[in-house]
């Protein structure tokens, strides 16, 4: 067996591809939890996108909602720790302060979403401009407050901790690494798969889902059968805000326990790309988010433990920044390859105006 592998590896040019395949087989089980962790904020952003756009509202302010929630969650923790203490009250290192702070973060996401909903549904402003305003305002305001707060360098409420699945589970052959991927996680990352499945079923199998999709495809027809288009759109945009805020809170309350200026680094927009690639379905968007995040995880893996042989020589000769840029490059390439065959909801981005009663 080893002889065969070595023979394959030593074929000129094509051998490097075999080496790459061998490296992937070796490394993917080890980094599988990292893949889901990198996918979590992207997937939640994508779910927010699906929630809004299925009802016909384009939301590019997701990035801004995420950075706001990341900041609000972290800073609420700072303010709440002196009052509520840091005693653990449950699994995942949950303290009362941490849970309340998460609630406040989600509420902040709903507030920002309400602004977007008002601008794009009631004022009927251009939805992309409205999203851009939210992004500029959110980055400005969080940066402004962070600069003021950083002078006092306060202590936060810590972060949610990861569950460690027992070795017997992760050592199960073939599927052990998949179980490890979904179980070796904190509460937010673990909840993503649950949210995706519930959302997928509700969107395509429930009355609410049918109404949302009708409003996104043909609002006029929806209105004539008695659906309140405006109310459905408001509701979906506000629920979407919860998803995006959860993704933002993940960054400052689970992945790290601090806030850095601009820490979302485009994940909201990568989430939008995942939504498009996943054809506006929750499961598809989650799959696309995993695809994008694998490039991040793989890039880091190559940076810190490069493969041996010719492949390693090639990969390590590239500057580190190639791996930093990898998720963005992958996003562009996949988006350009898929998008023509991915059809958005027909009324996506179009403001709805009730017909005047005559």
């Amino acid at each position: 067996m080893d002889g065969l592998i070595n023979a394959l590896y030593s074929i000129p040019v094509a051998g490097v591809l075999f080496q790459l395949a061998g490296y992937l087989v070796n490394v993917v089980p080890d980094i599988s939890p990292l893949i889901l962790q990198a996918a979590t904020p992207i997937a939640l952003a994508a779910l927010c996108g699906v929630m809004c756009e299925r009802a016909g509202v384009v939301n590019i302010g997701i990035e801004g909602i995420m950075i706001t929630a990341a900041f609000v969650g972290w800073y609420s923790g700072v303010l709440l720790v002196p009052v509520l203490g840091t005693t653990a009250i449950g699994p995942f290192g949950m303290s009362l302060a941490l849970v309340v702070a998460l609630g406040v973060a989600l509420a902040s996401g709903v507030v920002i979403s309400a602004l977007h909903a008002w601008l794009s549904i009631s004022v009927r402003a251009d939805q992309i401009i409205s999203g851009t305003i939210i992004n500029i305002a959110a980055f400005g305001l969080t940066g402004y407050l962070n600069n003021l707060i950083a002078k006092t360098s306060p202590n936060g409420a810590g972060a949610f901790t990861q569950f460690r699945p027992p070795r017997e589970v992760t050592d199960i052959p073939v599927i052990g690494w998949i179980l490890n991927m979904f179980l070796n996680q904190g509460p937010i990352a673990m909840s993503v798969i649950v949210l995706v499945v519930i959302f997928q079923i509700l969107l395509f199998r429930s009355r609410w889902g049918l109404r949302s999709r009708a409003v996104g495809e043909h609002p006029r027809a929806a209105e004539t059968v008695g659906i309140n288009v405006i109310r459905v759109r408001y509701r979906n945009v506000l629920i979407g805000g919860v998803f995006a805020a959860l993704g933002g809170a993940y960054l400052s309350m689970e992945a790290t326990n601090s806030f850095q200026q601009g820490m979302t680094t485009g994940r909201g927009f990568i989430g939008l790309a995942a939504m498009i690639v996943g054809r506006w379905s929750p499961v598809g968007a989650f799959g696309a988010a995993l695809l994008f995040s694998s490039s991040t995880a793989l890039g880091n893996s190559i940076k810190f433990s490069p493969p041996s042989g010719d492949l390693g020589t090639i990969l390590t000769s590239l500057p580190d920044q190639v791996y930093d840029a990898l998720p963005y490059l992958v996003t562009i390439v996949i988006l350009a390859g898929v998008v023509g065959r991915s059809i958005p909801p027909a009324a996506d981005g179009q403001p709805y105006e009730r017909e005047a009663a005559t």
Partner: protein
Amino acid sequence: MTAPSSSGSPGRATPLLAQIWAVIALPLISILLALLVGAFVILASQLVLPGGNLDLLLPLTAYAALFQGAFGNFDALVDTLISTTPLVLGGLSVGLAFKAGLFNIGAQGQFLLGALGAVAAGVALAGAPPLVAITVALAAGILAGAFWGFIPGLLKAVSGAHEVVVTIMLNYIAIAVIAAVVGGPLRQQGRPEAITPDVGNAALPVIIGNDGHAGIALAIVAVAVVAFLLFRTTLGFEIRIVGANPDAARYAGMRPRALTILTMSIAGALAGLAGAVVVLGVTHLMTPSFGTTVGFDSIAVALLGRTNPVGIVAAAFLFGALRAGASLMQIKAGIPVELIDVLQATILLFLVANPVLRRAFRLRGVKAGLETTETITKTYAGEVAPR
């Protein structure tokens, strides 16, 4: 935006003053309201922070310092002009794309690439005669920016990938490219930190005050060129028609795809020139973390200036003054410069919510805020422009 742009009753000539008021009323009210919101943010943030005492006059102190930093003396005024210059070019870039129904959020990346192109050529020609060095360095910046604009234009035309997502990804890739090139091939030997050599003779000459560089004049020329392109050439006409009504443009025999690629490339070139002007006129070298807020400010400039070249100059001057004054505001009043972003976003917010403002202030006959951007969202995600 579906708000009807109600103009004065037809057939009656409106006096000039009323015409001017119709154009500037909304931006003016938006700016004043934004300053009020900014004051509220300054006051409110004192309450949220631990151990802060409420200083009711802090907003006034901050705005006074802001004004002094922007217009306090001749040097401050030149500083404002220097900050205005890249914003004019960036605003033209975003505004031109808006005219064609495209949203160029990628001005930031194109700006960075333009700066990199200019610094690479400038370093290589640091000893050449100034005229040659400057011309080549500027051209390199323009080309690099145009290339960074060409990519999303091409992808949109060929596959329908929306330029908003692609240009934002390209912004992040541009940061990595800069870090790789400045830390690699362009790195100055014998320095502990990664930094490029000086551009030497490729530096733009100073024409006003101590450091008012020739880029200021270049920006004025660019405004004239873009205005001429848009309103006096066939290409400009086609760009405006494609933006206003892609179907009509196609039936009239224009090619929306080719125009998309061309417009994004020109927009990239303008943002690239902005980057070139900043490195050749101000910094004269580059660090791996080189970056400003120019690209993002440009979006606000283009929107506030109603995507019109003259309006863009006025808006760029306002934001240039805010940026120039911000550092004095930070020193004197302890207000972080990010307040400027908050002001910017608030100004845009009021412009976008213009139907509400017009009702509140009873502005009849005043033009809507952002009528030229109506088409942006319609082209979102996956809609392939007709051939």
